[in-house]
């Protein structure tokens, strides 16, 4: 190659600018980038939906689990925080055998908040028989009446 034919470094750089792909290449290129960009958008929207769902469902399920835990852990519902007997009423035992005995009398618990109104007795008397209170007394009185059995004497 003659020296006059030889290019300069600048000429070489200039000629490299011509080294560009064809239009067909660019059509394909544009299409591929568009596809990738769209899939990015789709992935992003799917991710945001999923993250929103997770963001909502995780705390919600946690709260549910916590609620269930406390529900099963806590003692049976009772009226516990009541004060025990500053206004307690003594247990009255009745020795009369004719009366149905009180089998069990729990402690009377009086709710102090209600003391000004009605005494609120939580544990009522539990009778050993299902009969009413009046019935044995009436029956006993009838039997003790003088001449009560005379009508049956022949």
């Amino acid at each position, binding site marked *: 190659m003659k020296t006059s034919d030889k*290019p300069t470094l600048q000429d070489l*750089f*200039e000629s490299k600018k*011509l080294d*560009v792909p064809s239009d067909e290449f660019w059509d394909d290129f544009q299409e591929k980038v568009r596809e990738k960009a769209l899939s990015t958008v789709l992935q992003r929207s799917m991710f945001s939906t999923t993250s929103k769902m997770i963001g909502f469902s995780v705390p919600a399920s946690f709260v549910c689990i916590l609620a269930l835990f406390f529900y099963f852990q806590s003692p049976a519902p009772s009226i516990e925080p009541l004060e025990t007997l500053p206004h307690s009423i003594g247990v009255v035992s009745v020795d009369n055998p004719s009366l149905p005995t009180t089998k069990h009398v729990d402690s009377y618990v009086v709710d102090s908040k209600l003391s000004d109104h009605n005494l609120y007795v939580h544990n009522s008397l539990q009778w050993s028989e299902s009969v009413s209170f009046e019935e044995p007394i009436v029956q006993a009185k009838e039997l003790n009446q003088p001449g009560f059995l005379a009508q049956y004497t022949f």
Partner: protein
Amino acid sequence: MFSSVREKTQSISTTTPSADDVSILVKRVQGGDIAAFDSIMLLYRERLYGVIYNMTFNHEDAADLTQESFVKAFRSLKKFKGKSSFFTWLYRIGVNMTLSHIQRKKRRKFFSFDQISEEHSLNKEFEKFSSTDSSSVRNTLLNELHQKLNEALLKLSDKHRTIVILFEIDGLSHKEISNIMKCTEGTVRSRLHYAKLQLQSLLSDYLK
């Protein structure tokens, strides 16, 4: 022969879009208009591809990396605040991706002349699809010179090569290159000077 090349490159040189037009397009994409991103791609795809190709000397890699750069830019566009110009930002993405790609490639396999010749044959195949249909430009001598230039560029460090390509082939200013490469203008100038000296000596047999 080379005077005709100069004329051709002057006629081909792309018109630079105005900053306002680009910022409008960027805002449209940020607002969810994907079609506006097509317009952005049309503006920059050839220049970005050219830079990446001249860094990798492999058309397939260049095509993949340019696509990836655009996709990454699209994904990150919401983070773009407009502190630098859009094309500087886009070029930075492309250049960084390409430098990482070259590093990865180097780690996998040291560059060998076999590989260069293999890539050269790929380039020849690719040229079948090339749009520039000028026999005077694409003659054997020019291809040979291109190959020699590519080989010489490959002997430069990645950063030196990138600066030469951005300045000499893509026509960016020192300031723009310093923004893209995140270094001072002085560094760009000194690297450019050193790189050109090295190229001149490597290609001394083929150049004036």
